[in-house]
């Protein structure tokens, strides 16, 4: 068997020194631009995969999806950014629908933080995601993906989302690398500030 033709993988390999994977999740409704954002900063073409779970396993951490009959599938996209010789950031684009959150603990434990990507035409789509992130105690920021000139101010949006004042909220254009990069930097700065404050307090 020709090993080259059996390999559908055509993406740059990680450095051999890579050893620490890091996760950030972008949550948002259908069509809000999650995959666009992943694509604009990823060093690989976004890939997609799925996880299955049993209906009976809803809410239970460890479920054996294999031998059961009623399985639910959740699909998600991801991309990759090599941060340095050791650290690799994986960026996940995740649907905000209900069944996704049942998989959160199993798949996304250890996630550094999340970006809630908001389409201002469908603000209410984001309420559920924000509620679930708070429930999972996952730090997040809100990024408004602008397809055109925004009709409302970010303050209006903060109010519409009932966001607490310490959650950063920014505008972005997910199609542009520099803008998506700014979103990630805003998130990690926010995490850094939180972690530093907590360390000082302890």
């Amino acid at each position, binding site marked *: 068997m020709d090993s080259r033709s059996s390999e559908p993988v055509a993406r740059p390999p990680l450095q051999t020194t890579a050893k*620490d*994977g*890091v996760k950030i999740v972008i949550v948002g409704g259908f069509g809000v631009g999650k995959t666009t954002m992943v694509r604009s900063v990823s060093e690989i073409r976004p890939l997609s995969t799925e996880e299955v779970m049993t209906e009976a396993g809803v809410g239970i951490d460890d479920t054996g999806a294999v031998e059961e009959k009623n399985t639910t599938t959740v699909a998600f996209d991801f991309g990759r950014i090599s941060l340095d010789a050791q*650290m690799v950031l*994986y960026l996940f684009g995740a649907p905000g629908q209900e069944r996704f959150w049942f998989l959160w603990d199993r798949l996304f434990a250890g996630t550094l933080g999340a970006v809630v990507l908001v389409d201002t035409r469908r603000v209410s789509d984001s309420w559920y995601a924000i509620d679930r992130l708070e429930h999972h*105690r*996952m730090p997040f920021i809100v990024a408004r993906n602008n397809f055109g000139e925004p009709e409302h101010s970010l303050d209006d949006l903060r109010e519409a989302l009932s966001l607490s004042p310490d959650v950063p909220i920014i505008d972005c254009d997910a199609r542009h690398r520099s803008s998506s990069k700014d979103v990630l930097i805003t998130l990690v700065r926010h995490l850094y500030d939180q972690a530093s404050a907590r360390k000082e307090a302890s």
Partner: protein
Amino acid sequence: MIRRLVDSEDPDRLYTLTGGRSRVGHNAFDLVTLVTSRADPVPGMQSEHVRILRVCRAPTAVVELSADLKLPVSIVKILLSDLLERGLIFASHPTSPTDPLQLPDPAFLKQVLVGLQKL
């Protein structure tokens, strides 16, 4: 595409793929655990194991393997725990805390920030 595989295919296939086990010792694998082969595939090996060992000649995350093999993450974790048990792969697990009440170390986050700023 994976959904089709899981739904339409004989459930026995997934059962066979994983030797009938569904929850033995694969929980240590995270989505972003980086897997590296320690050996080349040998004749007679299960084809999924062969593919994993080939792809993982360079470090590869569990989730990348799942996309490459078009198999759900949980199935890939089981395949990987087989290979780990047999000493055929090396697994490098993420260091970030999994307890949501525990924030990562500021120095760690600083490293992430520096990496992002270099993009």
